[in-house]
């Protein structure tokens, strides 16, 4: 069963500056090399593209540079080629770096959100222990056996109240008229039956009371 979890105060994921992140990444790949992962420069060429680090890019630069030095003859042609290759490698370095940074950042954010989620689930479950049901904010748990449980919608309630007010108003009018008849202001003819917009039994009650009134009036 899915539930909605609302974040009231979203705490910021721990802010790690990009600089620190970059340094950590570089350090870890350098340490890996230091601790003899047998990463000779040539092995960088064998790696999967998505596993490359900037250190690999530097190793690749070294190997290509050395190879080019072997074949370089004097002349602008090789010089331009070398320059273009270096340019491409610089772009490559930027991309690899950006890629690795982004991956790290996304991972961190994902982990933070996961931890956040777990925390809130735990908090939620500890508060609604009795019903065994997790409740979010702005929600109400209703016991179906409770005689005082809310049963009507807002709309229904509004309609009923409107009707009552209307009836009350009509009743007032009817009572006023009755008073007038009693005091003889109005002619003693058949009291005009007040049109009552009712289909309910109270209508019969009214008619019986008017009969009584009639007799009273008749007496006068």
């Amino acid at each position, binding site marked *: 069963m899915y539930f909605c979890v609302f974040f009231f105060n979203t705490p910021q994921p721990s802010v790690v500056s990009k600089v620190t992140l970059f340094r950590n990444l570089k350090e870890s790949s350098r340490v890996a090399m*230091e601790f*003899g992962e047998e990463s000779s*420069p040539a092995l960088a060429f064998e790696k999967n593209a998505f596993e490359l680090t900037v250190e690999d*890019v530097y190793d690749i*630069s*070294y190997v290509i*540079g050395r190879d080019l030095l072997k074949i370089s003859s004097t002349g*602008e042609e090789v010089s331009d080629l*070398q320059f273009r290759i270096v340019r491409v490698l*610089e772009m490559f370095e930027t991309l690899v770096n950006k890629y690795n940074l982004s991956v790290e950042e996304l991972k961190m954010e994902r982990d933070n959100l996961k931890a956040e989620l777990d925390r809130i689930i735990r908090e939620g479950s500890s508060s609604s222990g009795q019903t065994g049901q997790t409740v979010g904010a702005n929600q109400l748990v209703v016991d179906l056996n409770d005689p005082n449980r809310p049963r009507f919608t807002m709309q229904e309630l509004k309609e009923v109240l409107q009707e009552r007010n209307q009836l009350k108003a009509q009743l007032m009018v009817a009572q006023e008229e009755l008073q007038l008849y009693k005091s003889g202001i109005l002619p003693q003819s058949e009291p005009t039956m007040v049109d009552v917009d009712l289909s309910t039994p109270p209508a019969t009650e009214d008619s019986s009371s008017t009969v009584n009134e009639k007799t009273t009036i008749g007496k006068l």
Partner: protein
Amino acid sequence: MEQQQKQDKTIRKLKKQLKLYMKKVEDLEANARQTISSSDTSMPVRPVHIARKEKEFQGMLEFKEDDTGHLLKNLVVDLKPRGVAVSFTPGLPAFIIFMCLRYADSVNDDRRLSTLLNSTISSIKGVIKRKGNDFEVVSFWLANTCRLMHCLKQYSGDEVFMVHNTAKQNEQCLANFELTEYHQLFGDLAIQIYRQIIKSMENILLPLIIPCMLEHEAEQGVLGSKPTGLRKRSPSCPDEALTVEVLLQRLSFFHTTMSQHGMDSDIIKQVVKQQFYIISAVTLNNLLLRKDMCSWGKGLQIRYNVWQLDEWLSERELSGCGAKETLEPLIQAAQLLQIKKNTEADAKAICSMCSSLTTAQIVKILTLYTPVIEFEERVSNTFITTIKNLLKDRAESSNLMMDAKKIFSVTFPFTPSSVALETIQIPASLNLGFLIRV
């Protein structure tokens, strides 16, 4: 009537003039067309591609004197020793500075030249001071300082240094200034940096030497009498077993880094020799103090480790650098632990074998020697006295310990480069756009 006649006359006159001018215009146009067509015929019919003459670069970099600070900030102070540009062309910073030097020389500006040289030296000194513990930085600047020094010599115009130059390189020699004094200054700077590199390597190696060379026990039972189940792990590093492999990995890292920085192989060899000396001295000194290290099994272990070091030297093609020789005292100490130590003949054998150990050291080892196997006996006092007698004629120092801080004096033999300065283009990542390639 008269007027009409006059008007007719005027009209005729004007018409004549008009005809004249029209003819003139036609003639002119014809002439113009003629000249164009005549010039057309002198050009080839098909369009010709005018090739721009390739600008020949002279291998210099134009810079303003005010740019010197900016140049050195980007190229020396803030430069990382690992990057695309510097990995691609080892020694690139040195070449760039030298190309600027050549420009200042070519425009005969001695002030610009001396500002550049002096600022370079002080910037490099500053970097070494601040980041002296970072092996990569120190190695990088040792390589580049030496390269700059070699460039000063190679392009000095001095015939001694021009033996391997190409004709083009000879053309590029310094024209106006003689910078022999700076050869010395850069040489001194290089020595300073060399000392620092030895120090930074020492800091990394020292915690490893004793655990890797002495304390680690190989698991196989074949190495002496240690039971196979016994595995000793160094207390300082619980994560990885500190074997001689770990030590070799560090040495490999140093060697690879120095090579990638373009350090002269002569210098690398001297560094390796110094490294091996440190390993040998530290190990031996420790051995001389610890009874638990003086056993037959330990002797075998040490010989195995030394053999691994030797193999490493062969792999890296460093066999002739003198590193192996620095291990002699250690090798002999290990042999001493294994050799028989009972009879007079044994004593003579020991004395002739341990040529690199002092009497004090031999006696100490014999005194400390701890037999592991029950039936083996400790070295008898009479045996030690015999040894002492045999060796009393030696003229040597009475030192027990080796001097682990000794640094062999370093030399920087001239190593010219075949790099053609006119082919160097500055990569964008160095942020030196204000330099103009000449």
